[in-house]
């Protein structure tokens, strides 16, 4: 059951639902004050889940969600309030709303809908902002607060909004919290959820793995606004009376504290955080009240946050769910013996040009990084790209994959113009790449790193996991599947990165120094694996490396770049034999011709420069 993603998700949901049902049932037998405490913490838990869905998966700390809570609370309040009460408490309310008096559930759904609408509108902005998004969420909070204060006919402005029936019993709160936990846990391992977590670790690498970062952020934001709305709908019936200041910084900090203490990266962290903070606050409050020594709770809360940030900066439970942690040491079940045979064929005709990069020009504030560079990659062939440091090799790959925008370029992939195609779409159309300095999703498991790309290639999470495992097996790292990518040895990390690129089912693989940091044995092993991949999938490869031996044995043709220009192009040995190539490559322009000899003659000896 725990061996598949679906199984783990269901087991986890089942466990938490049972725990929350037990908490609710036990709570309902307690004296009213304690019961109210449990009810309150269940409502807060709903809000923590909303934050977890967005902030936990995207890594963007949100200050705005309490605004959605407020919008939903007011809307639910207006819809649920008896018409007779409205005449006194909301005399300025427009006529049609005056008479509305919905059943509680309908009113709550109305509140959630209102929060969702606001979530969609604000999300369209937030999702575009990238690094600035966190500050923008603060703006969302301030704007929504302003709206609540300003919409006097609906909210009574800054005055207390009162007259809401107090319908939030412990059962209403319990059901709301359970639904919130289910949504949060399902979202985490949904396609979008996995993509969003990849973008949390490295947005750029995620987009080269086919992740639509903005879209995933938008969906995460909207889903979390729905859950924040659910908290608001329950909170309105819990308080019965509130004003805009109840949906401002204090509540925001309460929810963020719970999430940060428990661990924002996992649903379990959010739940544990909500209960731990509630219990600590409650215990300290009781001690304080009994001794008339007040302020203990605030001091205690501050200490918990400090201790958490010091000892467990990612929260009590960190970034992983407990069930993922249990699977940590276990290797995933290995796929069928012939994993490579399972790889899909992408290019049918060997030798056919699949990637044309013509006349690429790129300047970095005056420095010409690429000066009319043209390189083509053919199916089932390996094109080597070498040149001294700073000659423009990585810039070429960045321009081709869309990470860097060239001044001029004609780019086609399988005959289709991709010059204006966004990074993620180029990846999905068949450009897989690795980075010179590795960019794995370090907080995701090895398997999830590759699953991200499989999902980009159109698979469901379940299929994606199976395909990912096959690809990892081809590269010989499947046994690491459940470990965190950031913990692997260097060489294995390189293989995971190649697997991730390969999982896009690409037409062309652009490998930027895949053998850097590997010893000769590892290099040879990698070479062998690349040959297998080439033969089974028909992928075209662009290979950048300084390892002359690797280049010589791997490449079908070779292009040499120097100062952003193509210096030589052709059959590898012939190119390497050209004196000016050796001169440029080793930086010995005017001197010792024997250097040429050395390059040309080096056999299997590794020459990493």
């Amino acid at each position, binding site marked *: 059951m725990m061996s598949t993603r679906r199984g783990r998700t269901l087991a986890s949901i089942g466990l938490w639902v049972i725990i929350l049902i037990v908490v609710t049932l036990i709570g309902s037998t307690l004296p*009213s004050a304690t019961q109210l405490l449990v009810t309150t913490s269940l409502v807060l838990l709903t809000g923590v889940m909303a934050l977890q869905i967005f902030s936990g998966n995207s890594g963007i700390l949100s200050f705005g969600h309490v605004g959605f809570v407020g919008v939903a609370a007011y809307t639910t309040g207006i819809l649920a309030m008896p018409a007779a009460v409205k005449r006194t408490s909301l005399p300025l309310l427009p006529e049609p709303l005056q008479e509305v008096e919905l059943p509680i559930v309908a009113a709550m759904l109305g509140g959630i809908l209102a929060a969702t609408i606001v979530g969609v509108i604000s999300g369209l902005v937030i999702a575009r902002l990238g690094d600035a998004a966190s500050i923008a969420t603060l703006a969302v909070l301030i704007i929504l607060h302003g709206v609540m204060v300003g919409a006097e006919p609906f909210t009574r402005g800054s005055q207390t909004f009162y007259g809401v029936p107090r319908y939030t019993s412990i059962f209403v709160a319990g059901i709301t919290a359970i639904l919130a936990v289910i949504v949060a846990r399902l979202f985490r391992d949904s396609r979008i959820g996995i993509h969003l977590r990849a973008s949390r670790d490295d947005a750029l690498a995620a987009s080269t793995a086919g992740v639509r970062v903005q879209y995933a952020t938008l969906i995460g934001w909207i889903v979390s606004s729905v859950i924040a709305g659910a908290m608001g709908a329950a909170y309105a019936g819990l308080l019965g009376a509130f004003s805009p200041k*109840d949906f401002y910084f204090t509540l925001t900090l309460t929810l963020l504290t719970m999430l940060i203490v428990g661990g924002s990266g996992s649903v379990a962290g959010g739940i544990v955080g909500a209960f731990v903070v509630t219990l600590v606050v409650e215990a300290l409050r009781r001690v304080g009240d009994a001794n008339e020594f007040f302020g203990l709770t605030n001091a205690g809360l501050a200490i918990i946050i400090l201790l958490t940030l010091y000892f467990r900066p990612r929260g009590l439970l960190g970034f992983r769910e407990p069930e993922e942690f249990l699977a940590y040491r276990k290797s995933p079940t290995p796929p069928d013996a012939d994993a490579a045979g399972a790889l899909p064929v992408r290019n049918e005709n060997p030798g056919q040009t699949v990637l044309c990069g013509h006349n690429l020009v790129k300047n970095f504030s005056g420095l010409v990084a690429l000066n009319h560079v043209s390189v083509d990659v053919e199916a089932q062939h390996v094109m080597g790209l070498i040149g001294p440091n700073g000659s423009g090799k990585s810039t070429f790959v960045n321009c081709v994959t869309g990470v860097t925008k060239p001044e001029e370029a004609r780019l086609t992939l399988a005959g289709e113009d991709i010059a204006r195609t966004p990074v993620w779409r180029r990846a999905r159309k068949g450009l897989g790449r690795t980075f010179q300095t590795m960019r794995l999703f370090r907080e995701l498991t090895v398997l999830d790193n590759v699953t991200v790309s499989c999902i980009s290639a159109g698979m469901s999470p379940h299929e994606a996991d199976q395909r990912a495992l096959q690809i990892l097996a081809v590269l010989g790292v499947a046994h690491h599947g459940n470990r965190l990518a950031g913990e692997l040895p260097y060489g294995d990390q390189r293989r995971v990165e190649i697997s991730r690129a390969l999982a896009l089912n690409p037409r062309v693989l652009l490998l930027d120094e895949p053998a850097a940091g590997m010893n000769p044995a590892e290099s040879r092993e990698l070479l062998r694996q690349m040959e297998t991949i080439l033969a089974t999938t028909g992928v075209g490869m662009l290979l950048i490396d300084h390892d002359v031996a690797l280049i010589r044995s791997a490449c079908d043709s070779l292009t040499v770049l120097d100062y952003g220009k193509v210096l030589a192009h052709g059959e590898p040995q012939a190119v390497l034999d050209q004196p000016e190539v050796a001169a440029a490559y080793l930086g010995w322009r005017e001197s010792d011709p024997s250097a040429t000899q050395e390059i040309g003659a080096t056999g299997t000896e590794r020459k990493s420069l």
Partner: protein
Amino acid sequence: MNHSHHRRVTGALVAIAAGTLLLAACGSSGSSDSAASSDAAPAGESCTVKVGVATGQTGGLAYVDVPSLEGFDIWVDEVNAAGGIDGKFRVETIVKDTRSDAAQSATVAAELLGEGISFLITPGDADPSIAAGQLAQEAQVPAMSWFGSSPVLPVAVGDFMFSNAFGDNAQARVLANYATQQGYTTAYTLGSPDSAYTSNLPRYFKEAFTSNGGTVVGEGTYTMGQPNFNVIADEIKALNPAPDVIMTPAYEPDFPTFLKAIRGAGINTPVLGTDGIDSPTTLALGETAEGVVYTTAGVLANEGPMGEFFTKYNAKYGKDPEAIFAVTGYELGNVLNAAVTNAQSCDPVAIKDAITNLEGVQGITGTISFKGGDRMAIREIALIKVTGGERSLVEVVIVDPATVPAA
């Protein structure tokens, strides 16, 4: 930051204009005796009045809730030393901190109600008081806010909810009547939507002033903490007809900024303020603030009946009280004293009925009544005029509840 009124930084207040606040005939000591008439309650059995205090001992409301409780505790010590209320009803308090949070106020109130209290004290602000009061209402236990002045407070909860403060609407009535007496017929009001206090007072004033036959010729709004009021000054200058008087509930830092802006623009129209500006800052404005008239509950001064309170406070806490809420907190004790004396019972419903009928309870700043009102305390409101950098008393008024603008 939008709890009602009293923003006063009541630091070491200069003992000022002493006689000013010698409120009318209040010669008697702070400790209570009741002038109320009640339905001849039979002398009850001795019992203990359990008082639950669910207030913000920490957080944003501590500025009112902490001194209020200090004052109330002095009364409790005093009354128990005398054998209890009316010599037989001992008072026991259970204090719990709400951290100035509405949801926490409800939880704490539920706990206190679970302990069988006869009387609940709630924070000096409407939101948490309503949240706690709703539970008291359900449990049929009377609740009273330390000094929440929004007149909506009791309306929102029901017949078991009271406030020890005069309503903002009563304050506005006093200002409107003063304006009319001075012969002003046109007024400009400046409010802010940012808090209930700053948004409601201009509205109440307009209603009261209009009912006196006056006209509000302009209504401006500002953002709390706004750095510059020059545009508003220009707006006032451009008004035609020019207003006879300007009314605003703005307090620090807005009030000084506003006042400097209009005086700097050459507008010498008289200004009416509310109890939020009863602070040393206003007096320190010097010539700019000269002639400003405002309403307030009372001014801390080591003189007269309040001087006696200073002595008691000093004996218990070893310092002078720093906020008028210490005084009003003590006065809440006077109210409870009168109610239990009249009820001759610790039964919550009997106490609630007795509070509803209280009339003329002697406090420190004056008398306090609930009979005939809307469960907001009917108590003296002082009108103060800033003269030569000091407070001078214009008059002390008790507003007829019938003339107060509706909540």
